[in-house]
C-alpha cells in the first residue's frame, strides 16, 4: 500500500510546498509511490489518515500549538519541512522586538488584539523525526528523502559545511574577499547555491553539529565587521538557535 502523505503549513511563505509542485518532471512518478491526502495549496481532498506529515512554517499562535499536537498524534513520521519549521527562520526576527511593540509598529495604535506569540520552531512544541532544511527546501533533497523513507533507509542530510560544496565548485571564497558568509558553519546540501551566485550564505539550512563559530567571528572581525553585525547575520535564519545558546558571541 502506498504511504499516505500530508502537507501542513503554518506561518510561512508556502514556498517549500511550492518546491514540491516545482518537481514538474518527477511529480507524476512520485504520485505512483505515495498518496497525497492533504495538500490544501493544490488539492481539495482533506483526510486525516496520513502516515507522513510534512510541517511547513513556524508556530506563531496558540491555536497552532493544538493543531500541531493533533497532527503529531496521527502521523507516524513527522518532518520539519524548511527553515521556518526547522529554525524559526525569518519569522523569528520579530522575537528580537518587544511583543508590545509589534501592533503599534504596524498600526500606530494599540486597540487591536492579535492572536500571536513569539515564534517557535516545530521541535519546541512536538518531537520531530526528521528535518528537511533550507529556505526554500532543495527539491532534489526532498525527492531523495522520500526515496529513502520508501526504501526503509534512514534519510541523510549532510553534516559538513557549505564550504565543502563551494570549494568543490571552484568558487572564489567570499570571506577572503571581505564579504560576510556563513558557509563555513552552515549545513551543506544546497550545492552552495548562494555563494555560487556570489551572494553570501545566510545560514538558511541551520548550523552543522559542530560549528566553529568562534573562528568565523574572529575572521569576520578581522575583515572589519563588529560582533553585533555578525550576530545580526546569524539572526536572519538562526535567531532561535542563537537564543537557545547554539550561536555564541565569543
Amino acid at each position: 500500500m502506498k504511504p499516505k502523505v500530508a502537507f501542513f503549513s503554518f506561518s510561512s511563505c508556502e514556498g517549500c510546498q511550492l518546491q514540491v509542485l516545482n518537481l514538474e518532471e518527477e511529480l507524476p512518478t512520485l504520485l505512483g509511490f505515495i498518496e497525497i491526502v492533504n495538500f490544501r495549496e493544490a488539492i481539495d481532498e482533506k483526510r486525516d489518515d496520513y502516515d507522513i506529515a510534512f510541517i511547513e512554517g513556524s508556530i506563531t499562535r496558540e491555536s497552532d500549538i493544538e493543531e500541531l499536537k493533533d497532527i503529531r498524534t496521527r502521523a507516524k513520521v513527522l518532518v520539519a519541512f524548511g527553515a521556518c519549521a526547522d529554525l524559526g527562520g525569518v519569522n523569528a526576527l520579530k522575537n528580537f522586538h518587544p511583543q508590545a511593540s509589534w501592533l503599534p509598529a504596524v498600526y500606530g495604535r494599540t486597540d487591536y488584539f492579535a492572536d500571536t506569540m513569539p515564534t517557535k520552531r516545530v521541535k519546541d512544541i512536538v518531537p520531530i523525526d526528521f528535518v528537511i532544511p533550507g529556505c526554500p527546501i532543495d527539491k532534489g533533497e526532498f525527492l531523495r528523502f522520500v526515496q529513502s523513507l520508501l526504501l526503509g533507509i534512514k534519510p541523510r542530510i549532510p553534516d559538513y559545511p557549505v564550504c565543502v560544496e563551494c570549494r568543490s565548485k571552484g568558487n572564489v571564497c567570499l570571506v577572503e574577499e571581505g564579504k560576510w558568509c556563513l558557509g563555513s558553519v552552515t549545513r551543506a546540501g544546497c550545492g552552495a547555491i548562494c555563494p555560487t551566485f556570489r551572494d553570501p550564505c545566510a545560514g538558511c539550512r541551520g548550523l552543522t553539529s559542530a560549528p566553529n563559530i568562534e573562528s568565523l567571528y574572529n575572521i569576520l572581525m578581522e575583515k572589519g565587521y563588529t560582533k553585533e553585525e555578525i550576530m545580526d547575520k546569524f539572526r536572519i535564519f538562526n535567531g532561535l538557535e542563537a537564543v537557545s545558546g547554539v550561536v555564541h558571541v565569543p
Partner: protein
Amino acid sequence: MSHDINIHHITRVEGHGNIVLNIKEGRIEELRLEIVESPRFFEVMLLGRNILEAPPITSRICGICAISHTAASIKACEDALGITPSENVVLLRKILLHAELLQSHILHIYLLVAPDLFGEGSVIPLAASHPDIIKRGLRLKKAANDICRVLVGRHIHPIGMVVGGFTKPPAVKDLAEVRRILEGMIPDMEETVRFFEEHSMPEFNRPTKYCSIRDDKEYALYDGLLYAKDNPPLEVQRYKEFIAENVVSYSTAKQVRSGDSSIMVGALARLNNNYASISEEAKKAAERLGLVPPCTNPFMNNIGQVIECVHSIYDSLKILDILDANLSSAPFNKDGKGGVPPIEPREGKGVGVVEAPRGSLYHEYGIDDKGVIRSANCIIPTAQNLLNIEKDIEAMVPSILQLPRKDIERRLEMLVRAYDPCISCSTHFLEVKFIE
C-alpha cells in the same frame, strides 16, 4: 429558505481563507471572506536592520511571487538611497518579472483552475483523466522556472538579485539559454490558447475600479505611474492618495479602497488599463479568447492570465534582443567589473511598486543616515482585491440561490479562485480583532 454556507479553508489557493455566507429568505444576512492565515509582522522584522537586507527578507513574504517582492523592495531601497540602476540591470529585472508571471499564471490556470473546467476536485484526478493537458502545463511551468534558475539560481527566493544590480550577472551563454527556453514555450503556449478557446468562463459582470501601474512606452510591469480610469496618473511616491488601507475585524489582512470604491488588481485590471500597449501576439490571443477590454467579468481574470503569458514570452524575447545588442559592445555593468557598485547610505524614504502576477505590489521604507530601516510598509495585491471579492459574492449570490448548496459553494470558490488569491502574501501582517 435558509442557507448557512461556511467554506472552511478554501482549497487550491495560496494560504488559508474562509467564506462565511448566511442567507435567510433569499437575502444575505452575513457575508465575509475571512483571512485566517497566521500573522507574520514583516514590517516589524525589518526595523533596525540594514536596508540592503530588505529584499532577501521580504522575498520570504511569499514563495510564489518572491521575485516581485524582491523587485519592489529593491526599487524602494534604490529610491531611498538615490541609486539609478543601469539599463541592463533594469532589462534583466523585467525578464525576471515576466518569468515569475509565467510560472505563477501557469500554475494557476493549469493546476488550480483547469480542474474546475472538468468538474474535478484537483489536478491529481485531472492528471489521470487528461494527462496531456497537465503535462503541457507542467512543461510550461518548468520552462518558466528554468529561466529563473539560469538567471538567479531558482524561482523561489531569487539569489543575487540585489540593490544596485546582480551579484553575478548572466553571461552571454546564459542569455542564449533563456532565449532557447522561451522559444521552446511557444508551441505549448499556442496550445494553451487553443485549450481555453474551447472552454468558456461563467457569465457574471460587475464593473469596478481597475488599478495598476501604467507606462506610455510599454505594457507596465516594472515601472510606471499609478493608474485607474478617471484618475489623474500619480507618481508611486504618492500612493497614499491612490489607495487607502483599513482594518476589518474578521480578517488577518487589511482591506483596500481607492476613493470610496473597492478595487480590482491583477491581469484583468492591467488589460483593462493597458491593453493598447500589449504585444501584437497577445492581442491576437485576446481576440481569439473573447476578452475585449473593458471587461467587467472577474472570471475572465483567468483568461487575462493566459493572454499575459503570451505577452510575457514575446516581450521577454524582445528584451533579450536589446540585451544581446548591448552586451555585444559593452560589459553587463557600467564599471565593467561585474557585481554591484558600492552603496553609500543616506537618510531618506523610498517607495517601490511593481506589478506582481496578482497585481500592484507596494513597498515603502524609511531609513536613517546609517541606512538602518526605521519604518516599513508593504501593500500586497490580494489585500487590494479582498473587498472587491466580497462585493462580487454579494452581487452574484442572488442569481445562483436556486442552485443546490454544493453548486453554490463550488461557484463561490471558483469566483474567489479567479482572483488567484495569495493569502500568505496578504497577511504578512496580522490577524486583528477589535477589543470592544
